[in-house]
């Protein structure tokens, strides 16, 4: 059964990829990429990687696709026919692929419990992390504690991307309420998209509630700061899409988002510095409390909070920047 599910998912993935290679409509390609992400998220579930599946579905199928669509608004949706020969790329790809296939021939068999990958480092995570860290989700234990520095690095990567996006695309400053009282008055009277706006407004509290659940339940089930941050961002993306960029900017000013993005990194890094000051190594949560296990708990909750804050504010801010570029005069249409 598992084999069947796996094979059919892989088959669908292959079809999607072939379609991406052959199609010329960028819009279709981007949508197919969303599908590809979703399918790979399903494969991740079939392969027991629930946390990864969650993230891939939220990030790949969600945020990446939304950003790509926003880009398409400015770039147009058709790829032009190229006169360039595809021989060289094909050659490179064939050689690389052949080398990989050749290498698989004596790779450890897929799914075999005796593979070396499972028996050097991973054993300890599985056997001892419930006692050492004291939380059931081993992925969270490894992510936040054993390999906590990787995760700090990853938060910084997200922060770096924000720096890049902000330097390339400026977020529009919204017209202040005082300047355009009439426009605001008008907008209150005539909702341009009544159905969508009402639905979005009803959904938003639940999305945020779900984000908070994912944030704080990450110790026990799939979830954690990244997923929560992405879901939180999605609530505001929904708001922006239905109410317009100006309203969204009034709700979450960019300066606040920027400060939060930096703040999240500092919360994470600050935890490390505090543990250093208390006599441990950087990011050693054991010293945060008299009891090592509760120290780990405190540390993980705090750093996950930092991750969530940074990811959410970076993604919202990046989305605003993209929308500013994609819909430059949206404010006037209102």
């Amino acid at each position, binding site marked *: 059964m598992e084999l069947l599910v796996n094979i059919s998912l892989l088959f669908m993935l292959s079809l999607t990829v072939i379609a991406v290679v052959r199609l010329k409509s960028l819009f279709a390609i981007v949508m197919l990429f969303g599908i590809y992400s979703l399918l790979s998220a399903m494969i991740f579930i079939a392969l027991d990687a629930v946390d990864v599946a969650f993230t891939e579905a939220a990030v790949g199928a969600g945020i990446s696709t939304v950003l790509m669509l926003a880009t398409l608004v400015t770039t147009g949706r058709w790829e032009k026919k190229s006169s360039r020969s595809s021989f060289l790329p094909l050659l490179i790809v064939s050689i690389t692929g052949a080398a*990989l296939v050749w*290498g698989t021939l004596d790779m450890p068999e897929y799914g075999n419990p005796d*593979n070396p990958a499972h028996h050097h480092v991973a054993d300890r995570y599985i056997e001892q992390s419930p006692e050492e860290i004291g939380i059931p989700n081993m992925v969270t234990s490894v992510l936040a504690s054993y390999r906590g*520095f990787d995760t700090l690095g990853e938060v910084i990567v997200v*922060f770096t991307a924000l720096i890049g996006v902000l330097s390339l695309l400026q977020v529009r400053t919204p017209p202040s309420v005082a300047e355009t009282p009439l426009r605001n008055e008008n907008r209150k009277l005539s909702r341009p998209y009544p159905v969508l706006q009402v639905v979005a407004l009803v959904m938003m509290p639940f999305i945020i509630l779900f984000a908070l659940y994912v944030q704080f339940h990450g110790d026990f089930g799939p979830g954690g700061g990244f997923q929560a941050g992405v879901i939180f961002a999605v609530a505001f993306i929904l708001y922006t899409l239905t109410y317009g960029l100006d309203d969204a900017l009034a709700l979450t000013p960019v300066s606040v988002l920027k400060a939060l993005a*930096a703040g999240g990194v500092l919360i994470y890094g600050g935890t490390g510095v505090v543990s250093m000051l208390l006599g441990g190594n*950087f*990011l050693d949560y054991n010293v945060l409390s008299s009891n090592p296990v509760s120290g780990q708990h405190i540390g993980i909750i705090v750093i996950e909070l930092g991750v969530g804050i940074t990811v959410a504010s970076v993604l919202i801010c990046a989305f605003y920047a993209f929308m500013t570029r994609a819909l430059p005069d949206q404010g006037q249409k209102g």
Partner: protein
Amino acid sequence: MIASHLPALQVVVPLLGAPFCFLLWRSPRLSWLLATLISWLTFAISIALLVTVNNSGTIEYAFGGWQAPWGIEYVVDQLNAFVLLIVSGIAAVVFPYSWISVQQEVELRQQSLFFTSMVLCLAGLLGITIAGDAFNLFVLLEISSLSTYTMISMGRDRRALTASFQYLIMGTIGATFIIIGVGILFMLTGSLNMQDLAQRIPELDQSRALHVAFGFLITGIGLKLAMFPLHLWLPNAYAYAPSAASAFIASTATKVAVYVMVRYLFSIFGVNFSFQTIHIQWLFVPVSLFAILFTSIVALFQRDIKRMLAYSSVAQIGYMLLGIGLFNVTGLTATLLHLFNHALMKGALFLAMGAVCYRIGNTFIDSMQGLGKQMPWTMAAFVIGGLSIVGVPLTTGFISKWVLIQAAVERGWWPVIIVIVVASLIAMMYIWRVIEAVYLQSRPENAKNVSEAPLSLLIPVWILALANLYFGANATLSSELAGNAAATLFSGTGF
């Protein structure tokens, strides 16, 4: 107490300094001051680390208190302490320089973002150098890469955007190749820790999958270090980036990539596997010889001096790979020495070009005609850097070329020596073109008269220029460091 945390602080200080730089977005001056402070602090830390390593041997630092291989570990040995010193030293010179240069070349809105990117890039590069964990290296690599793309895209010319995009695509392909390689290594050994990998790889000797992992890692790192013919992103990226960014990236980023290459070849895969099973030298020697000649010739025909210097960088990377390919201790010493020396000379040259750009707005050879009289100090520093590239005695360039030639003599590979000499002649020609334009031709009538660059630009330029002369005349310190590191790497007890 602080002493035991030095390896972590080396990276954490810039890593956590960056958000503060960013928070000062209203005042670029403050964020520049903070960035400069951070760069000096990291320089101090790297000196302290080097001293400690020389006195008491390799330092290990376990993040989160989790011992390797379960946790992430930083390892500082003679090799990377040396590279850390290079990176942070260049940063400590370039960061103070950047203020005035950035004032002119980058929009006000982007300035504090530029300084933040620079700090992030510094953190990433230091992290790559110090990391003892293969996956952590990838994460820090991405920090440095993303911030580099950002800095390049801030150049004024619109071609900066395409250069940055091209680099983004090639860099990401490189990074993905690296994670494929690391993934296969993990599949075969179950570990990500470099020391641990180094112990477990010899047991797998003949595995095909190991060969594939090796190939992917070398290609990925090769993309990052602009190994010929994977260098196509480099010339545009260096030419169109803001001057301060060009100077910083050109003198550090590829060096760090060369370090990673050396680390993988010698410490992780081990000398036996890399050179006796795979025979990587038969790839490196011809490719680097061709690269040295070809890109030196291309450099001859560039009108933009920054671009010319970029091509010369690809050629210099060729020298470094050649040193690895010669496969003896002297050759590796030459590579490591050149790592240091090239950082000094390219830093000096790019900073001098930044000063020129500050005054005349571009770095085309025709606009620089007769500049020698109007900007005597800047151009003198340029000449010193240029002589160093050529390899004139009493400059650093001479030292590394000399050691490289010695290594080739040890091997008895005479054609290699001929190529080195010919390439030096070509280098002399392209540097001479600039000298001729600057000193022997007079300033065109219609060109505006300019004065010498301000002191805050000149001092960093001259620090590096004098360093070129000092380490050229008295190479004991640098050759000792490089020689020790090379000997350790070859003894197989690397780390």
